[in-house]
């Protein structure tokens, strides 16, 4: 697993943009999530394995455009018969590997390959709308979607509605561009980088 954060040289702590005179509590918050285990579960096309038997950290594999979660782990639908797991339990892949038959599933550790930015605050939807063509208001807590943000392919996980919180993940190599895009969109509202 890669220990160096994808945004190590770019994510600076502080307040930026139009934050003067605004309440700290209501200010947009931008943070980077790292030190997570990320792995992809792909069920082969010719497999007829019943996925309802699978539990990852006690969570079902969600249906299209949905996610399932507990305090450690989030499982996101990533495409038909394809899921992405984010977990703070770094041994999860070893624990869960046994239930995935090699003839039915491919499990790939991609912890090193993604940059994750978390946005929190009432204006999160406005920030997303600036760069993403999705109908953002129709997405609620427990939804997820793959899309683009200013041309960069991203996965958006709608973590919570109150407080409004989303996680945007993109390929690590696009991490710095994605961070620029998102923080540029936040400048108008003012944001706190944590």
């Amino acid at each position, binding site marked *: 697993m890669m220990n160096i954060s994808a945004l190590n040289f770019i994510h600076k702590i502080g307040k930026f943009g139009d934050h003067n005179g605004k309440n700290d509590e209501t200010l947009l918050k931008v943070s980077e999530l790292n030190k997570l285990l990320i792995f992809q579960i792909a069920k082969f096309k010719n497999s007829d394995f019943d996925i309802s038997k699978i539990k990852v950290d006690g969570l079902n594999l969600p249906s*299209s*455009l949905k996610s399932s979660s507990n305090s450690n782990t989030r499982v996101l639908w*990533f*495409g*038909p018969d*394809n899921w992405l797991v984010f977990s703070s339990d770094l041994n999860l892949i070893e624990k869960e590997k046994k239930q995935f038959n090699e003839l039915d599933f491919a499990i790939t550790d991609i912890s090193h390959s993604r940059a994750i930015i978390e946005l929190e605050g009432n204006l999160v939807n406005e920030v997303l709308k600036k760069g993403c*063509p*999705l*109908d953002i208001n129709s997405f609620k807590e427990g939804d997820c*979607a*793959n*899309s*683009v943000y200013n*041309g960069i*392919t991203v996965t958006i996980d709608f973590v919570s509605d109150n407080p409004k919180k989303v996680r945007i993940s993109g390929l690590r190599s696009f991490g710095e561009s994605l961070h620029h895009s998102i923080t540029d969109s936040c400048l108008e509202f003012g944001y706190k980088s944590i």
Partner: protein
Amino acid sequence: MLNINCPYCGDRSQKEFAYGGDATVKRPELNKEVSDEKWNEFIYLRKSPRGKHIELWHHIAGCRQWFKVQRDTVTHEIFKTAKMNEEIK
């Protein structure tokens, strides 16, 4: 800007998709003799119809699935979309 109804993800902006060409082209059968003319036709020759056309699109920034789209090449109106194993009539 087009909106395309992905059979897996629903209505999405064209920004998330890549065009994949004519969906009606059939590859010559495997392990059978094929003439140079037929092979040339399969590789290079494409129709350029005016009106309804069935195309392949790839939801490259979404679910990464290929699917079929019936689109009017003049008005860009999209009539139907279907999974690869489904027919558009």
